[in-house]
Structure formats: C-alpha cells, structure tokens
C-alpha cells in the first residue's frame, strides 16, 4: 500500500513514546506534505542532537559532547550539595523552583527488577565516587514518590549512610493552592504524618 520509504518512516515514528500506529501515519503524511526545507530541518535537528549531545561526565545531565553540563560548569553553583534525580527532565522541574543552588546527579532510572533495572544499570557507583572524592556535604534524594523511586532512595540512603555526608529525602504532601477535599487519602495521610510545628 505504501512505498518502502514511507513504510519505513511510519514504522520509525511508531516507535516513539506516545505515538501509536494511527499517529505515526498522520505524522508521516504531514512530513510528506510540508516543504522540503522544513522536513530537513527536523532531520538535521535529530542528527545534531545525536552527534553533539552526550551526558555530562560528572552528573550525567545532558551536555555538549566532551563538556561538563551547564550546571556543573557554572562556578556559582554549590558543588557541596547534590540533588539526585531519576531523569534529566527532573532537573528542569527542580530548576523551575529557583530554590536550589547546588548541583545534580542523574541516575537515569530507578530500581525496577521487573524491568531488569538493578543498581548496576543506574549511575550509582559514579554518585558514590563523587561523594567520596569531592567535598560533598549533603545529598538530597529527589527520586519520584512512587514504589520504585522510594526503593531507590532507600537503597541510596543505606549506601551513603556510612559516608560522612548528610542524606535527606524530599518531603511529600499537598500541592500548594489546592483544596484539601480534592487530595487523595494517601497524599493527605503523608501530609499529616509530615506535619511540623508552627
């Protein structure tokens, strides 16, 4: 029904996250219709990101090839505090808070034996080396508040415990500006447990 090249494009697009067969087909025909230079710009952007982007050798955030990432190379950031996240996108989320002046460490996942992800698959050894070698005062465990994220945080807490460093876990509770009545029981329960004196 399709030509070989079109078929190949639909197949490749279909592998993208969140893109099903129908969407893949729609995108492929869209690309077919738009001017060549527009389509080529997309192709070049893909090539450029693959050729020029790598992971920061220190924190494993995205960075230009052979360079430290923007945050690690910024002298105004406090290298003595490390915020541990699962994914580079989580860095963007924490950065938006403008409350954190330290550096990051990206694990690239969370412990998940069902998916075959153990400590060896994550950038955990590199984190331990950083804590041992650089003068790190605090590690903030900022993994997701789900089962796998909590297990990862617990694993790291045990691993870093014997080292001379403060290890903390981000709090979980109610979204600011929200209504109590719309909170789910689990979140509200956690918020109650984590209450503090005022």
């Amino acid at each position, binding site marked *: 029904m399709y030509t070989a090249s079109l078929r190949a494009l639909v197949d490749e697009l279909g592998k993208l996250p969140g893109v099903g067969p129908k969407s893949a087909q729609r995108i492929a025909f869209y690309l077919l219709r738009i001017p060549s230079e527009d389509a080529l710009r997309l192709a070049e952007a893909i090539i450029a990101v693959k050729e020029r982007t790598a992971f920061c050798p220190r924190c494993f955030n995205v960075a230009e090839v052979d360079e430290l990432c923007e945050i690690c190379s910024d002298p105004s950031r406090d290298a003595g505090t490390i915020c541990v996240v699962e994914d580079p996108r989580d860095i963007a989320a924490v950065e938006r808070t403008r409350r954190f002046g330290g550096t990051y460490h990206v694990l690239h996942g969370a*412990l*998940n034996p069902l998916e075959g992800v153990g400590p060896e698959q994550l950038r955990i050894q590199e984190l331990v080396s950083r804590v041992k070698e650089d003068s790190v005062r605090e590690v903030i465990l900022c993994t997701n508040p789900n089962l796998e994220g909590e297990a990862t945080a*617990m694993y790291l807490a045990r691993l870093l415990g014997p080292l001379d460093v403060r290890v903390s876990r981000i709090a979980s509770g109610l979204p600011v500006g929200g209504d109590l009545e719309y909170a789910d029981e689990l979140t509200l329960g956690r918020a109650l447990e984590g209450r503090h004196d005022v």
Partner: protein
Amino acid sequence: MDRQTTSSHTCVERLLLRNFRNFFCGSFEPPLRGMTAIVGPNGAGKTTLLEAIYYAINQRSFRVVDREALIQTGSNTAVVRALFRCDDRELLVETELCRDQRSRLQLNRQPVRTREIRTLVPMTIFSPEDLMIVQGPPAGRRLLLDNALGLVDVNGPETVEVANRIIKQRNALLRRTGGHRSTSLVRSLEVWDEEWANAGTKLAEYREQLVSMLEPVFCELYSLYSSVVPTGKGGMSSSEGRAGVSYRRSWKGRLVDALRESRDEDIRRGVTTCGPHRDDLVLYLDSREARLQASQGEHRTLALALRMALHQLVIDRDHRVPLLLLDDLFSELDETRARALKEAMPVGQAFLTTANGLPKGVGVDQVVDVRTLQLAAADL
C-alpha cells in the same frame, strides 16, 4: 409494580442487553425493592441476567469464562447498559465488549475506570462457584478479604495494590539472580525486604482486623443458616455445627526478621517464601478445619455465610443495603429450609435464580420468566 424509590439501598432500575451471551436483545425493569425471582428452563439465560448486572459493575464475569464467550456467537460486540440508583444518585453504566479491541466503559456518558464503579455500586453475589472459596486454594480466600479491606480502612485497597507490586518486584529480583548469592544482591534485597515488611505487615493487620469484624457476624449467620440448610450428613444433626474463622499468618514475629531468616531459601528457590501472600483465611466447623472435614452442603453454607457476613458489614457501616445477586440459592433445599433462608435475607433489592421454580411457600416480591425479557425489536 412497586416503583417507589428509597435511598437506603442500591438497586438496578433498568437493564438493557444486546448480543450478550444468548440475549439478542433484552430489557429488564425490576421492582426497586424486594426479592425478584428469575425463573425459566435450563439455558434460558437466568444466570446470564445476573452475569450482566455483575459485568456492568466489575467488568468481568463471576463465572470463570473467556471474555469472548460473553459475546453472542456471530456478533463482534456485546452491550450491557445498566441504570443503577444509589443514595438518590442515578448511575448509568454503559459497557461495550469487543472481540478484538478493548472494552469501552462509560459512567453517565463519561469514560471511567472499573474500580470507580465498584466503589459506587456496592453489590454482593453468591453463586455455585463460591464453593471454591471454601474448597479451593488460599488465593481465593485472600482475594475475598483483600476486596473488602476498604471496610477496615480507606487505605486498605491501596495497601493491597502496593503490596502486590512490591512482591512482584522482589520476586523478579530473586528470579534474575538464578540462585546465586552476592553482596550486591543482598544489598538490593534489603531494600525490597524493608518495603515488603512494611506493606506486608500492614496488609496482614488489615486482614486480621477485617476477620475480627467478620467473625461474630459470620458465626451467627452460619448457625442461622445451618439450622435450616441440610448439612448433608443424612439429616442427622450429630455435630453442633458451630462455625469459626481465623486468619493464619504464614510467618512468626516481625516480618522483617522472618525475611532475613528465610533469605537463603528465597535466593535458592528464586521466590519470596514468607509474607501475607502465603497467608490463609481458615474456616472451622466444630473446631476442625472445614476445608478438610466438612460435607459439600456445609461448605456451601459456609461460603454463603461468609458472603452474607461481608454484606452485613457493609450495611452496618454505610447504612445502606448493597445490591444482592443470588445464583441458584435454593438448589438442594427443601421448602421449609428455603423459606427460612429467604426470610433471613436483608431487605434491599435482590435477584435470585432458580431452575426448578420457587419452593412452595417462599414468598418473593416478583417472579419473572427470563424468556419474557427477550425483545424482538431493537430498542437500544
């Protein structure tokens, strides 16, 4: 026909079926209160009617069947549309089963998750398959408890889900190691041990609380039913017929310690050997384990008492009577016993099926021949 609405119980106002099992097109408007007997010859679709109501709430059948079997032969889709009334709320549940696609489910014309309907429309079912609760493996009894943990605590259902995910993760970790013990494995295991110990202990405690709530009601109902239900011991009531129930943990002491003790065995066998996923709900009759001792008739009565005890707990907590589905309740019962059993049922809306007609003297509020519910013209 009694059309008076009451807010104190859950009921079906209207049921429409299309291509569901042997119903080409069926419509049913039952009385909103009281017991409706569904009669008809074998294979006419009496149980199917209950199955459709059950399906609208649970998105599966209570009979062990392939989902495809619910769709009429020669058709690609089946439709169940049910209008429920609970606490003066009208809940229109529409579900479409497709042969090769995912089923669609809507509540008041909006897409909805199955679990939501289950919490909105409380329902109790008793069917011949429930004999397996007593006779079958412990998994069925654990599931019975787990599905009712919401009665103990709002976090109950969530705890079940979390515990199930943790045990899957821990078992996956054990399976991948192929029986080899290493320091890195132990380090990972310790994390999952702690997760499993927390969630597993909580789960066992919730189940124990539920069982202690259940016990007095269950024992009372059993002795009530067994005074009227034959025990299958030749009519001679030689036994006292006192029922009991208890929760049996599969480990002793703290779960985290038990896990440490069984660690080597867990690694060797590649599976978690201790925790609430190995626990059991033990039913007793005259202080002996019923599963191993009692007769078929006693097992049936135990299962009924268990189902109805949970039913009663919901009534006591919510002050409203769940919808009650009773498939083939009177089988093997004589008239006196059937009558007494019916009198002991809580008042709400209930449906019962019977193949042999109603036992004499059993007063129900309406008798419906299932064959009259099949419509000729499309009305959906």
